[in-house]
């Protein structure tokens, strides 16, 4: 078994409205910053032991499918590194 850290990034699918991001962008603009667009994402870091990177990825992928992301509105990415 090897110790890994998996990073799951969950973001809204392209085209799905993100009112919080729009509000955040407007707040930055009110502070005088200039920017073209702002996108937000949730990032989860999971420490786990697995036989291989592939095994860790598979397990975390299922976690993302079943809980961390909602496939109706989200895309997600999983990145696994040795810890």
């Amino acid at each position: 078994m090897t110790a890994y850290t998996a990073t799951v990034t969950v973001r809204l699918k392209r085209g799905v409205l993100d009112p919080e991001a729009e509000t955040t962008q407007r707040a930055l603009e009110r502070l005088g910053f200039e920017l073209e667009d702002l996108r937000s994402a949730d990032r989860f870091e999971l420490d786990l032991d697995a036989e291989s990177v592939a095994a860790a990825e598979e397990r975390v992928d299922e976690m993302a499918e079943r809980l961390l992301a909602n496939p109706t509105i989200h895309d997600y990415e999983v990145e696994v590194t040795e810890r």
Partner: protein
Amino acid sequence: MTVAVIQFGGSNCDRDSVRALSHLGIDAERVWYEDGLPADVTGVMLPGGFSYGDYLRAGVMAARTPIIEAVRDAAAEGVPVLGVCNGAQIGCEAGLTPGAFTINESARFQCERVHVRVENADTPWTRAYDEGDVLSLPIAHGEGRFEANDETYDRLVEADRVLLRYCDAQGQVTDAANPNGSRGNVAGLLGDRGTVAVMMPHPERATLPDLDGTDGAGLLRGFEAALAEA
């Protein structure tokens, strides 16, 4: 008959729901989610509230509790299931109904009266109405914007599974009458079976005559209608 109103940590419309159902002569009781679904239930209501503080996404934590497995099995057997507000979010997160309810277009919590149009009167939940009837109901949510991809939305419309759409007082479904940016102004929809429904407006807050209006009573009577038709 007994309708189980499932209480999760953070539910806050469970008592109101039992009271409204009881007022209509529909036997109802609160069931704590850890106690499991009673074997003899003749209906399940997932009430409004803020289960688990809306952590991660509204409704998702409750949707992953074991009692929801029992609700899914009961729904598949034809037991009527109604999710209201947080219960609607739980229903979608549990896959009882397609799509998702997410953050309002305004990014604000909205507590107001809205009008909804009955889109399909041929369901237990809308038996008391005619298609096109306009109901005045309260909403109170921050995450009520219905989202579905093109395929899912088209499938819902084709199968006549949109139950309620936000509209103006005259019944016109317009952008201006859409309080939260929901796709197609969808305020309520059906699951795979017509006996399963979720909706963001609160019928239990529009049932008792000493509150403001009783337009929601017919929706709750769906529990009776579903049994009568079974």
